[in-house]
């Protein structure tokens, strides 16, 4: 392109922007997770723009940590986006700091028409509330469960996936051969919760204002995982700092028999290795069958310049049709009860099995979040768990130390 063409392009773009501003054009800024930019949502945004002449949606996509950094800076500058997708926990955290717009008036007006909160799973509603005040609406509701390589298990003589820790250990050891491993644990802190929850451990007790992770059950759970890696040599050693996709990549590459993951990995596994014979199993059971819940909610910052339009877009994004389209496209599980009851969803062996975990999935840090000290304690926990899982420190020594430190933070002002 010649310099004159380039110059004309710049001038044209500038003039276009100027004219659009003069004509009253408005922009709705939306922060979104880069991994969730599905075509289904792109279509909704296009329809929104078509229905609102003169409006355009600036759909900015980030990885979660980068989005958080930008959002905090935006809050400080009092220039936040109009609508934000968050990974769980931010709604209550920012709501407590009076940075979000309460949604009660909007829900009173439109709630019945969109089925909120009645059509949402109860805990997906609770995690977006502070007292009686709504601050967010859940758009994805997920949980992680055991995903396994059917052929690797068959080769090792197993026709069905493990259901208990004892069976899991047996399968993991039997499928570890050569360069292949029985299990690949995920180093992200949330994934450790499968083991804690299955051993009946909760994070925090609001009555005593203490964490529960120095209990014998908590110690047993994390020691089980550490032993699986270091003593039994039946699991890969997690890689520090790596993103959550590491185990999925090994699984997709046919090098690992089992991983714990959620519907967010359905699309990468299917596209990464279409020939892989894999399936989704119910969560393991030790003391109880349990797993952790996750998911994404939408929230409107208090200083949003266009809250009415943001609410309009939010309603469209959480509509049942949009949920079904996103599930069809990416395998994502959703918070609506009517979504879970949909015959197509129930008939899908992968999505249906993930959906079957939602009723017993738990929002692990729900109670701790309300103390406002969750992020700080989570960092301590991450370090403690890494000492056990990476450095082979005995859980019986590390977890009480962590609990003492966490309880001191909880007891402080």
């Amino acid at each position: 392109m010649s310099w004159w063409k380039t110059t004309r392009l710049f001038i044209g773009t500038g003039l276009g922007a100027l004219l659009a501003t003069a004509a009253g054009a408005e922009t709705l800024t939306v922060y979104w997770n880069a991994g969730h930019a599905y075509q289904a949502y792109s279509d909704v945004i296009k329809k929104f723009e078509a229905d609102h002449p003169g409006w355009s949606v600036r759909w900015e996509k980030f990885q979660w940590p980068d989005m958080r950094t930008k959002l905090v800076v935006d809050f400080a500058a009092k220039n936040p986006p109009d609508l934000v997708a968050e990974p769980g926990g931010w709604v209550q955290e920012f709501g407590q700091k009076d940075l979000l717009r309460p949604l009660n008036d909007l829900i009173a007006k439109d709630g019945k028409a969109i089925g909120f909160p009645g059509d949402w799973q109860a805990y997906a509603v609770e995690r977006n509330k502070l007292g009686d005040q709504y601050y967010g609406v859940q758009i994805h509701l997920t949980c992680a469960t055991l995903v396994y390589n059917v052929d690797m298990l068959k080769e090792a003589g197993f026709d069905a996936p493990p259901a208990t820790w004892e069976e899991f250990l047996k399968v993991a050891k039997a499928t570890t051969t050569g360069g292949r491993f029985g299990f690949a644990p995920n180093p992200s802190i949330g994934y450790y919760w499968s083991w804690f929850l299955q051993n009946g451990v909760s994070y925090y007790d609001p009555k005593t204002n203490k964490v529960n992770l120095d209990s014998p059950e908590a110690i047993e759970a994390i020691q089980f995982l550490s032993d699986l890696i270091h003593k039994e040599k039946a699991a890969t050693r997690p890689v520090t700092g790596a993103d959550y996709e590491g185990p999925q990549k090994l699984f997709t590459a046919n090098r690992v028999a089992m991983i714990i993951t959620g519907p967010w990995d359905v699309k990468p596994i299917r596209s990464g290795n279409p020939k892989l014979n894999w399936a989704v199993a119910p969560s393991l059971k030790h003391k109880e069958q349990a797993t952790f819940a996750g998911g994404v909610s939408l929230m409107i910052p208090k200083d949003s310049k266009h809250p009415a339009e943001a609410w309009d877009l939010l309603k469209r994004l959480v509509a049942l049709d949009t949920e079904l389209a996103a599930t069809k496209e990416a395998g994502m599980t959703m918070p609506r009860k009517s979504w879970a009851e949909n015959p197509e969803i129930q008939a899908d062996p992968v999505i249906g099995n993930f959906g079957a975990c939602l009723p017993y999935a738990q929002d692990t840090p729900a109670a701790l979040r309300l103390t406002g000290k969750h992020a700080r304690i989570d960092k301590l926990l991450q370090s403690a768990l890494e000492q056990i899982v990476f450095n082979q420190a005995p859980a019986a020594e590390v977890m009480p130390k962590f609990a003492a430190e966490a309880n001191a933070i909880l007891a402080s002002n």
Partner: protein
Amino acid sequence: MGAGGREEVAAGIGNGHPTALRRPRRVSLKTRRAFVAYLLLSPAIVYFIVFFFYPIGLEFWASLYSGQPLIGESQFAGFDNYMTALQDARVRQSVFVTLAFAIGVTVASIVIGLGLAVLLNRPIPGRAAIRAIIFFPYIISFVIVALMWQAILDPYTGILNSILAELGLPTQSWLSETSTALPTLIAITVWKDVGYAMLIYLAALQSIPGDFYDAASIDGASPAQQFRYVTWPLLTPTTLFIAVVSTISQLQELAPAYLITKGGPADATRLFSLHVFEAAFFELNIGYASALAFLMFLLILAITFVQFRLLNREVSY
């Protein structure tokens, strides 16, 4: 004053008071020069005030508050945040890790950079290309460097362990063991930055007059003695420059820990900047994070002062 006002004043007429010859007040040359200098400097001064001094002042103000200064409610806390930071074991740990990282990277960059510069200062074939290859990582974004090294060092799919396995050597979990994570992070940073040190040393080597080496040769000095008694002393200012710049830069470094290890395993690579960053953006403990940042500023100031005192010897050619 009318058109002829100046002349009227000069003549002492027109105001009813004869006599005194009143000359217009003239601005001195020195003042006029200063005015012009400040006028020309004003864009830079405004830039530094707006983008450096104002944020630094704001940061110091925030460090005196608890709660969420800058984004929400806060309460004046005096120097409580500073006292808390000084008593925090995790802060001490991250300072220790950061000092080890900064010293490791700086010393290795100086030693390797100087070695490469001495080698590539000789007339060897393809030296321009070799210099460019060594300097190239310095201009790459650390994001790319992090992704590349994570892929290379992956214990199960990485090429480094594949090569070690092919050679019959034991493989390593480079980033997953406390004992190897920090040295690995140092090695990656040195790989990226050593080209800069090499380039500065090359420029310094080329500025040493050849007469010195001729004289040393005539006196019977071996190449090692020439390096010890001619090259190294004359490179002292360069070494000081690299040491100061590298130390300051590495003490503030965030990218290697944030992008490669997230501070793990078990805080083994938790650099101070990462600790500050997480306190501010993940824990939303902005007052405390601001106090930590100021403490780091004081530490860098102290280290730089010591470096100047130790290395700033006068060198004359």
